[in-house]
């Protein structure tokens, strides 16, 4: 659909941005064991009252193991003509391995699911040398300033977050860090191009071995509609929406997706204007006018393009207070000062809890003064994050640990092996990883695993409190 149409659907009253509040849920099984999508449906059903039926959605990772090396494209289409236009476009750059309607159940009587559009999915193999589209502002911007030479060498360092090398020819697992930078930019370009230039087409997600299922309705009804109980993935996120100023349209539901990033978000970012204008200078144009979009772009800029670790990104997005920084020893203080100075306009201000996911990794983050609910829990290999403990308890009554993360403290769940340098693709976002593989906590450096909680952080936030320094 055209940009104007997009805006019109997303933000019909022309407000500064779409405003909504929500319920969130996320789970990752670090061992790579795949969980039935029913887990996300049931958890979200227990957060029913945090939404108003105007949007629900899910992201599943590792759901297409048999197609793991193909780009999975989920789209909504206004009509068959739109589909024809899309397929014509796809054929220029991709070989279509499989095209089919996304399986779904008929809308049951009494279901909150409203007027589903055509929903299709494609499994695509990029043709050699997928072309950059010079007409796209986004693409141009993304191309600019990207350090093209950085690809192969990064990712091998501890603390850089993702343990993937890139361009090393390892098995395809669909992690964002693994996409060749140029290809990733082209893919972003391509999606933007479809969304903006093809009437009646809107992309839900476009990445390897993952997919976004979303629409208008309560999340449990949307999950039921999409037959999520037929899927299994090692990571799920879910979202129930309570928008206040947007009409119901299927594309406006969460998760918001960019490459293999998905973002579900509860909050209102008061710094939206500052964040948006900063991101524009890096080539990200916030066409959807939502907070969620800004968060996804910020995550992409910081973690994919600038190679910051999850912790560093969290220290930008929900920066510690100067008062706390000033008390730190010189080295720590200087580093944090650098982060806050350079990325000051990316500080997310205002109330939010967000679950950012990418292949193999789940990041929960709350705002620095903790104005929106956020609970984390662990049970065996599983890490849960949600708006309310009730959503977790309903699917996993026996939990090893339950805690409320401090403001700005990221909760990170990562597939075992992913954090180990130099094991590209070993994770196999599919079920291939043996359950027996070491289940010890990955070195996520923060609250990834509850084992260290709460003894390790008597005060201040994990990672840079004085206690840790002294110890």
């Amino acid at each position: 659909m055209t940009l104007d149409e997009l805006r019109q659907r997303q933000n019909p009253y022309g407000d500064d941005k779409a405003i909504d509040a929500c319920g969130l849920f996320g789970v990752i099984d670090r061992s790579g064991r795949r969980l039935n999508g029913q887990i996300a449906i049931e958890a979200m059903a227990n957060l029913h009252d945090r939404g108003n039926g105007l949007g629900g959605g899910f992201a599943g990772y590792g759901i297409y193991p048999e197609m793991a090396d193909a780009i999975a494209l989920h789209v909504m289409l206004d009509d068959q003509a739109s589909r024809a236009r899309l397929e014509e476009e796809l054929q220029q750059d991709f070989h279509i391995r499989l095209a089919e309607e996304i399986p779904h159940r008929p809308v049951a009587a009494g279901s909150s699911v409203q007027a589903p559009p055509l929903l299709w999915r494609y499994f695509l193999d990029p043709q050699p040398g997928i072309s950059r589209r010079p007409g796209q502002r986004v693409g141009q911007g993304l191309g600019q300033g990207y350090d093209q030479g950085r690809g192969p060498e990064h990712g091998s360092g501890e603390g850089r977050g993702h343990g993937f090398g890139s361009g090393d020819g390892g098995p395809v697992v669909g992690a964002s860090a693994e996409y060749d930078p140029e290809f990733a930019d082209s893919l972003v370009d391509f999606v933007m191009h479809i969304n903006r230039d093809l009437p009646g087409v809107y992309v839900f997600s476009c990445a390897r071995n993952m997919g976004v299922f979303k629409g208008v309705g309560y999340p449990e009804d949307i999950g039921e509609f999409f037959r999520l109980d037929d899927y299994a993935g090692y990571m799920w996120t879910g979202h129930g929406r309570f928008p206040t100023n947007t009409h119901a349209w299927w594309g406006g539901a969460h998760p918001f997706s960019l490459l293999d990033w998905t973002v579900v978000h509860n909050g209102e970012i008061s710094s939206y204007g500052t964040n948006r204008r900063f991101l524009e200078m890096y080539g990200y144009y916030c066409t959807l006018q939502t907070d969620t979009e800004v968060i996804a772009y910020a995550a992409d800029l910081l973690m994919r393009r600038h190679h910051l670790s999850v912790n560093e990104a969290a220290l930008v997005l929900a920066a510690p207070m100067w008062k706390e920084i000033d008390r730190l020893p010189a080295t720590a203080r200087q580093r944090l000062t650098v982060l806050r100075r350079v990325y000051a306009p990316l500080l997310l201000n205002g109330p939010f809890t967000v679950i950012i996911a990418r292949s193999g990794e789940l990041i929960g983050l709350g705002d620095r003064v903790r104005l929106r609910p956020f609970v984390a829990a662990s049970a065996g290999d599983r890490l849960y994050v949600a708006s309310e403990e009730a959503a977790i308890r309903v699917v996993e009554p026996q939990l090893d640990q339950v805690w409320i993360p401090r403001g700005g403290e990221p909760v990170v769940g990562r597939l075992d092996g992913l954090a180990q340098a130099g094991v590209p693709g070993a994770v196999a976002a599919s079920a291939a990883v043996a359950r027996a593989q070491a289940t010890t906590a990955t070195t996520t450096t923060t609250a990834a695993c509850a084992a260290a909680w709460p003894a390790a952080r008597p005060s201040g936030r994990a990672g840079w409190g004085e206690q840790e320094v002294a110890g």
Partner: protein
Amino acid sequence: MGQARTHIEAQAVFGPLKPYLEPEFLVERDPDRCIQCGVCISQCSFGVHWFDVRRSQVRAEQERCVGCHRCAVFCPTGALTIRRNPSEYRPNANWRPEFVADLKRQAETGGVVLTGMGNDKPFRVYWDHLLLNASQVTNPSIDPLREPMELRTFLGARPDQVNPSASTSALADGATSHPVEGLPAAMVSVEDLPPALQLETPIMFSAMSYGAISFQAQLALFEAAQACGTYANTGEGGWPRPLRRFHDHVIVQVASGRFGVDADYLNEAAMVEIKIGQGAKPGIGGHLPGEKVKAPIARTRMIPEGTDALSPAPHHDIYSIEDLALLIYALKEATHYEKPVAVKVAAVHNVAAIASGIARAGADVIAIDGVRGGTGAAPKIIRDNVGIPIELALAAVDRRLREEKIRNRVSLVVAGGFRSSADVIKAIALGADAVYIGTAAFVAMGCTLCQKCYTGKCAWGITAADPALARRLNPDLAAERLINLVHAWSAEIKEMLGGMGINALESLRGNRDHLRAVGLEQWEMDVLGVKGAGQ
């Protein structure tokens, strides 16, 4: 003032002509309250009050009154009232009294009409047409009395990203000796960042030179800047040795006259600012008459005592943008790349393009002074007719720098008539990093905007050249007033920020979504980049 037929005070060729002007102010003395103590006589530096020996009574020569209110404030019995003279000509919408008065003055003297302070004409003040946002329901407002609220601001260039390769080397340089769990491991060290000023509040004191203001006033400004964790600017008149102890909070100016500039001057300061122009008098230079250049001023400015201190209109080594780049880098070389270099320009028509050029020429900070900016002395015709409002200039510059993707390379400081904390926070929302205040600081020290700075007779001791008058300003007490002002504004800014649900000023910077316009034309809203209220 020295130059015949140039300034209004000059002697006319045929001797003094009878002034055809009536007094601007009436000095009313309540005989029941007046105790004939004569305080008004000693306080008035313009010779209004005098003791009539024959009548044994204090009387007033009110045609000399400039309306500074020094006498009324210091009268121990409150016997004095200063009022504007209600005497009126026949009303005429075109030939308004101000034009008539200036015409008559010029007919009497043949000079350029001089004035002080900022433009006092009723051009639209855009701050008064912009309203701020606040949180209701969908997000919570934040109470600054209970929650942290951050105003810390950095001025200087920012790199576009933290460089991972530099960070690896930082790690190798012993950063690993802090094996803090979760500490960002990969990062540039702070030394690798371009130099910057750290402000604890986004309010700085404008450039006001020693000579234009008294030593005491400059001392008060420096003291206050230090106490508030911010900066004060020396202006172009050099930097008196006794005031160098404030070096961590002082910005020095390099202007077209180069007064007082040497290696120490540059290296002792926190930042160096190249002054290209001033909002009150864009395009023209400055002139401190020789009679004001007494020994201490002469020493500070590094010119002979008693000579006129002339600042040329342009820098005679800057006739183009590449010349500016040369000077910027000359100053950076001289300061070993340890100080940010700012360039101050007046807000003029093409300010966006000019600012873009300045950013590309290598400046770390751009200061823009709007049409309402103050001055110690300027031709009235220039002050009132040249330049554009700072609100529009700021919006245009911020937008242009973003469009060109170079906004990170420079910080923006704006100046020119900031009257309250609301003006400041609106400027931040339009895209400014910090503001300079001059007139507001003056008012805090006692100034009543009588606009007679250029006479050197300031009864409040702020712009006084006469040491006896200058001593009226107790620097410590004046500093206390300034500190109070900055604290009060900072507290108000925190309240407004918290109301918007924001707890760091940096999240409001350039966040025009938090502004709405009332009573503006569409083109004005377009330039400001704000929607109308209700939109």
